[in-house]
């Protein structure tokens, strides 16, 4: 009973805010220049979808997030597995990972643009570098938190190195790798928008910046709404994926 009614609460709050915003904006209580009515934003959003502005900018953003995440995430997962499995490698590389990780990766953009030009390569690369770090750290931690007992059981049954990798190391670190993917995806999306605000002609970030420059506040809100929905979709999608890939962990995810 409580669960069912509580589920409606966020929707109710959202509706209440939108309705009062609409009313106050129409009544002229709040400036419709700063706070255009939700209906006006919706109309702008619809027009921008129909005339292709929004889809092409969304596509430009996704074409940076997805390859960047794939590149950085894959490299991070591979290095993380290796560092988790090998103490020597971990001791050699971990200090560098720990030192570079806290640095805001957007600071690399100017340097990368000098090396690789102002095209897509430098943008995707900075996204990949940003996505790399959460993945490498989570994967390494994922390997290290596997109880040594599981390796011992597998060994006592005569597991080969390949089987130990596929039956113990990989599945054992999978839950943390998947939360790594989620962190990396969020960082990749964030950096992509930042890069686009700074140095792109197309993309959701570029559209947001353009809207500010030409003072199209309704378009600004529309682009922000799309950005929010994309962020939400990335999170929900990856969460769904995680519950399919690690069904033994569904009941234990603390973030839900």
């Amino acid at each position: 009973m409580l669960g069912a009614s509580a589920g409606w609460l966020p929707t109710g709050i959202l509706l209440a805010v939108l309705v009062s915003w609409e009313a106050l904006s129409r009544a002229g209580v709040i400036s419709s220049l700063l706070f255009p009515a939700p209906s006006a934003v919706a109309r702008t959003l619809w027009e921008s979808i129909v005339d292709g502005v929004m889809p092409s900018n969304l596509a430009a953003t996704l074409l940076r997030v997805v390859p960047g995440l794939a590149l950085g995430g894959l490299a991070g997962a591979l290095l993380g597995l290796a560092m988790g499995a090998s103490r020597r490698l971990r001791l050699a590389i971990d200090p560098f990972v720990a030192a570079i990780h806290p640095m805001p990766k957007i600071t690399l953009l100017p340097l990368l643009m000098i090396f690789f030009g102002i095209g897509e390569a430098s943008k995707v690369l900075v996204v990949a570098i940003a996505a790399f770090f959460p993945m490498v750290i989570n994967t390494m931690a994922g390997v290290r938190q596997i109880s040594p007992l599981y390796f011992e059981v597998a060994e006592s049954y005569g597991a080969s190195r390949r089987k130990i990798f596929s039956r113990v190391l990989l599945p054992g670190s999978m839950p943390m790798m998947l939360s790594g993917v989620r962190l990396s995806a969020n960082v990749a999306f964030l950096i992509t928008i930042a890069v686009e605000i700074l140095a792109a002609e197309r993309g959701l970030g570029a559209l947001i910046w353009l809207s500010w420059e030409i003072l199209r506040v309704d378009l600004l809100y529309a682009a922000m709404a799309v950005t929010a929905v994309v962020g939400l979709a990335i999170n929900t999608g990856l969460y769904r994926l995680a519950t399919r890939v690690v069904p033994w962990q569904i009941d234990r995810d603390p973030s839900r």
Partner: protein
Amino acid sequence: MTDADSAVALSCQGVSHSFSSRNGPVEALGEISFTAKPHEFVCILGPSGCGKTTLLKIIAGLLRPTAGRVVFEENRQRGSPQSGLVFQEHGVFPWLNVLDNVAFGLEMRGVARPERRARAHAFVERVGLAAFENHYPHELSVGMQQRVGIARAFVSNIPILLMDEPFGSLDAQTKRGLQEELLRIWSQDRKLVLFVTHDIEEAALLGDRVLVMTGRPGRISEELTIQLERPRDPDRDRIAVSDLRWQIWQLLEADVRRGLSIQV
């Protein structure tokens, strides 16, 4: 005496183990020697910290003895496992469902998927977990998880089972049920079981022989043959078991008191 009676499945010859600590080398195991026959149920009884687990790990090949050696009946072939481990807890893989956990040992021996699934399925039924075949361990009780571990060890067709206090964390009723079940499965499918426990009654109920270990460094101080007829039953044999328990305790008492520094 038949051949099977005199055969030796496993022999520990002066197995010692020491490790280095900040205060110099620590002798965990001192010269353990014993032999065990195939199909025998040997309980290794001793207080915590006496090196029982270390001994088991050496026999499993997970630890190298500092001195001495473990010899198996047949020469250990590479890639062909000689022993299966059952731990107190966390011995089953949380990421494999019941069927895949039970089939794990078979998979490691290279048994093809359809065959190992069929064999594992039959054993899952035997331990009464057929309805949970596709469940993951976290959906099962600890007692059920231990049944999965036992089923995995037995189905794998390995000659030696190493059990490290498998029922140590269970409540009395569940423990009783699993002891019965283990005896039932073992009587149908005899292999050498080395069963580590600190529970005197459990050792007396399960074992053909009890090796009593004392600690620091761990060594075998007594060896008892349990004459109790098989098949045994925890309820029916409770008086005999309780007598044995008294006998064993008399043997152990001095050591335990020494360990606790109690003066009589």
